[in-house]
């Protein structure tokens, strides 16, 4: 059975609890609950299947992971009784600066090893399955491996799955002019366990992920293709803006449920 849900945001709390939301899973952003009372997570875990998603572990930065963040992450995953946890194929900080958002890593064997090691450490520490997410990028970081090969090897060596962000794939394919379908066909389908999707924006010829737009038809087509291709278990609508548009979000969830079960 494929589940459809939304990324949990405080602004959506009442709507999620309403009868009309019709969802059976939620994605929790780990950092939003660092140092917070976990009773809410315990309650949500009784009603929904939960997945815990990280933003700031910076698995692509060489060197040891931040133990304090790891511990906080694991606490959130435990409180949510997370079915799985996820992080990004990216770096967000160095020893000198926290860049605050996701940046690509070189697709080299050296960085593959760094990510494998960190992914294993995270999964072992949290004692839960891990899935890794593809990101959007403006800066192309070349290497010996193409992105799909890099992701396949990461999943294989780290014994993790893939959180395929369909919007990120779509945006990269447009901005960097490659075929999203060819990219997809290079990915081992069994690795893809969860999807992210949200509408894109287009400005000055450049596609962006502002996490506030309605899902466009061409993006839905790509979602359909991914769902045909891989044994996806959960689809998450990843909205961070225009969160007061409850009717629109409900429509989006209904559309995703229809596509996911077609």
């Amino acid at each position, binding site marked *: 059975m494929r589940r459809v849900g939304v990324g949990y945001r405080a602004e959506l709390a009442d709507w999620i609890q309403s009868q009309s939301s019709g969802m059976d899973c939620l994605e929790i952003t780990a*950092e939003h609950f*660092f140092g917070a009372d976990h009773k809410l997570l315990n309650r949500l875990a009784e009603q929904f299947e939960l997945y815990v998603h990280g933003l700031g572990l910076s698995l692509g930065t060489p060197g040891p992971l931040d133990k304090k963040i790891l511990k906080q992450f694991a606490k959130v995953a435990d409180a949510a009784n997370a079915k799985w946890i996820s992080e990004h194929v990216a770096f967000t*900080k*160095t020893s000198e*600066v926290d*860049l605050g958002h996701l940046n690509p890593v*070189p697709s080299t064997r050296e960085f593959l090893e760094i990510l494998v090691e960190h992914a294993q450490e995270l999964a072992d520490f949290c004692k839960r399955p891990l899935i890794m997410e593809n990101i959007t990028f*403006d800066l*192309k970081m070349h290497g010996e491996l193409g992105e799909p090969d890099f992701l396949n090897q990461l999943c294989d060596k780290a014994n993790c799955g893939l959180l395929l962000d369909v919007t990120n794939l779509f945006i990269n394919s447009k901005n960097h002019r490659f075929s999203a379908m060819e990219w997809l066909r290079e990915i081992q389908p069994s690795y893809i366990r969860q999807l992210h999707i949200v509408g894109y924006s287009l400005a000055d010829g450049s596609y962006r992920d502002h996490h506030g737009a309605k899902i466009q038809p061409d993006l839905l087509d790509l979602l359909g293709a991914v769902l045909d291709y891989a044994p996806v278990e959960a689809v998450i609508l990843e909205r961070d*803006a225009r969160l007061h548009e409850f009717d629109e979000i409900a429509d989006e969830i209904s559309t995703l449920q229809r596509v996911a079960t077609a």
Partner: protein
Amino acid sequence: MRFRRYNESPPPDITSVMGRLLSDQVLREEFANSPHEVAQRLGLEGANLEYIAALDPVELEQQAETLVLKRFQEVRALAPNSLHALGGEALTLFRYYAQQEWPSGHRRHLIDTIGFLEFVNQNSFEIDATELRRIRRKR
């Protein structure tokens, strides 16, 4: 072959140098003009130096701009009234502020918002003082 002195720091890795480049506009401008020289100045050697020197400066600038715009989005979500009051000046002011300040940790967006509103206030632009007080209480 050059030997390292005992206890000499190891050369920086690729992500450290990217962190420097992505957070420093002046350095990026220098990099666009002389990539090898800047990569060398940042302590890179051998294959790492060649890798960084081969990065596309236009794409590097776009990546840096994306980081600033994503931070701006977070600040706008936390302080909508103040950013509305700043109108078209908001992004220009944020770009200036964001080059100097890189808050860290999971509360970085909150710290960023407070820092930006204080910066704006210090420069005599109008903000929503009630909103700033409310955000400070969340810290």
